């Protein structure tokens, strides 16, 4: 168990170019499942690779368990990593793949066998030990990669998009297994992904990254409900948060907060919107509309309305829609940062 910390960590690949990672300060908590979430090119993988020691930082330090490890090679950092491609050694059997880190650390043969058996059992891959990686399915490979990472009982797990090579159905069950696995070992884990569903479902906390900088760190609830800026507001959530710019400020609310009057109780603001298009997704309807009249006239909004709420939407018709007042978020138009709710008239 250990805490991973970065101090002013920066990576510049080419002089004069924008930094891939820019002065990042963050610290995990002990035993935490921390997710780095961001679009491709946001620097999340580079950040992870610097923590692993696979990439040399241009500036700043990495600390693991309170010790500066910036100058240490990966093998001296007490970490284990699962790669996006799993990076299994193709010429070795599953058993020898899992045993490799133990062998590299000079563990005796008897103990090696015992530990490989233990890791294989934990991940339910005992029947695969004699196979070669190419004979395994994607899900099996992912488990072998996890077993290889886990067998050494590292102080920190680093996972680089380990589920992105699995098909959608398998991904959901693998997500659940991974979360359960973390609960059982309680090792500090850093997980990189561009998939917000994975981040929200598994993370104790989420670090939202964009263009090499941290945009927000918080629990899934915090980053989803109280986004720190417009980037976080639109990157999380699908469809993204509705943002209605007005002079100086931007008003925002989630599509699932935009509801027909019958479904809203308490104080709410009122929008008249003309429906342009409706998607029926079985459990909900996604309604695309344009605000009709008022100060936000002509702005596009999206509503997500569960089918359990009785209402019909016809294309071309103007509808009355409400947003509960406590679901409204406001951002500064110039900086994009969250601001206090101003007094504005909605009609």
């Amino acid at each position, binding site marked *: 168990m250990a805490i991973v910390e970065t101090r002013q960590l920066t990576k510049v690949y080419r002089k004069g170019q924008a930094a891939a990672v820019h002065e990042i300060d963050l610290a995990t908590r002990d035993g935490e499942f921390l997710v780095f979430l961001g679009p491709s090119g946001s620097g999340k993988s580079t950040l992870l690779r610097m923590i692993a*020691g696979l990439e040399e930082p241009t500036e700043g330090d990495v600390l693991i368990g309170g010790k500066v490890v910036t100058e240490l090679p990966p*093998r001296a950092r007490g*970490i284990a990593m699962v*790669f996006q*491609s799993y*990076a*299994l050694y193709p*010429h070795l059997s599953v058993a020898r793949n899992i045993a490799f880190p133990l062998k*590299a650390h000079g563990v005796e043969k008897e103990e090696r066998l015992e530990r490989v058996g233990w890791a294989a059992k934990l991940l339910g891959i005992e029947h695969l030990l004699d196979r070669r990686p190419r004979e395994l399915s994607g899900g099996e490979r992912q488990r072998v990669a996890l077993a290889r990472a886990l067998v050494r009982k590292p102080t920190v797990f680093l996972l680089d998009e380990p589920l992105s090579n699995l098909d959608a159905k398998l991904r959901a069950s693998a997500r659940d297994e991974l979360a359960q696995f973390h609960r059982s070992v309680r090792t500090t884990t850093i997980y990189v992904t561009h998939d917000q569903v994975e981040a929200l479902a598994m993370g104790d906390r989420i670090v939202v990254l964009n263009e090499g900088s941290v945009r927000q760190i918080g629990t899934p609830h915090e980053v989803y409900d109280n986004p720190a800026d417009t980037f976080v507001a639109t990157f999380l959530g699908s469809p993204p948060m509705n943002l209605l710019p007005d002079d100086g400020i931007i008003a925002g609310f989630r599509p699932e907060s935009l509801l027909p009057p019958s479904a809203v109780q308490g104080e709410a603001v009122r929008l008249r919107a003309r429906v342009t298009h409706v998607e029926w997704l079985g459990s909900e309807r996604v309604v695309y509309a344009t605000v009709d009249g008022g100060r936000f006239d002509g702005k596009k909004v999206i509503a997500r309305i569960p089918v359990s709420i009785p209402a019909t939407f016809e294309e071309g018709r103007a509808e009355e829609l409400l947003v509960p007042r406590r679901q409204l978020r406001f951002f500064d138009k110039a900086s994009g940062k969250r601001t206090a709710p101003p007094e504005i008239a909605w009609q």
Partner: protein
Amino acid sequence: MAVSTAEIEGVRPYARRRLRGARLLGLALFSPAVLYIVALVGLPFALAFLYSVGNVTVGSVGYRFVGLENFRSVLQSPAFRRALLNSFVFTICTQVIVIVCANVLALALRERFRGRGLVRFLILLPWVAPISLGAIGWKWILDSLYSVINWTLARMHLVNLFDPPMWLGEPALAMASVILVHAWRMIPFSTVILLAGLTSIPREIPEAAAVDGAGFWRTHFEITLPMMRPIINVAVLFGVIFTFTDMTVVYILTRGGPYDSTQVLPSLAFFTGVLGSDLAEGAAISVFLVPILVVVAALMLRIAYRAEVT
């Protein structure tokens, strides 16, 4: 389905014509390759077999079948046995040196550094330069009087300038020289092949090994080399063929001397059959290359097949 006979008759000749046309085109495209193989490989090969069981000499017109007489005479000659042994020594030593050096070079050339393009070009030079030019250069470098190596060693007081080593004049040194010069020539080829193999290993695999705790040597011997084995096999097999059948370096540097101590099968066949005018015996010598090369070729096909499967 009802189809009238008129329809069938109307369609068929056209289809047949088209089929015939396609077959003709196929034959036309195929024949140059067949012609080339028959004329330049098949005929000489058949001729060599024919000569090896006859009594032909340069300038003679008759042909008399003599059975295995030539082979018997060849097998009894000490020069042949020496050449056979030399061929194996020459090939094996060269390939060991080549593979080790090519590995080191490939590892070095994979790294990014200033002037890598220039270094890559220089390393390739021995391969692209005509072998006769390179060998003649080496002949001067190893010359008994003008050897630049001896001059350097003498200046460093390592050898006596008036009694220097005769690089091409003493049997052991001559063999070593021939081996080293041929290795020098073969290294670029193997380096390029191994470099291709090395760069085809996904970057994440050595990274995973580094995170798993392996240092440079463990990563190299337990991960990189085993993963490169198929491509190393290819390099070795090509190297064996190029070395076993080659006589240029031997011919230019030593002419097989001193006292046949560097003679290899191809050069012996050339000296006996062409320069010595005994075509039949020369043919018999070169026929001895066939079983060895057949084994190598079979191995090559097997490896190519396996590389496809994995």
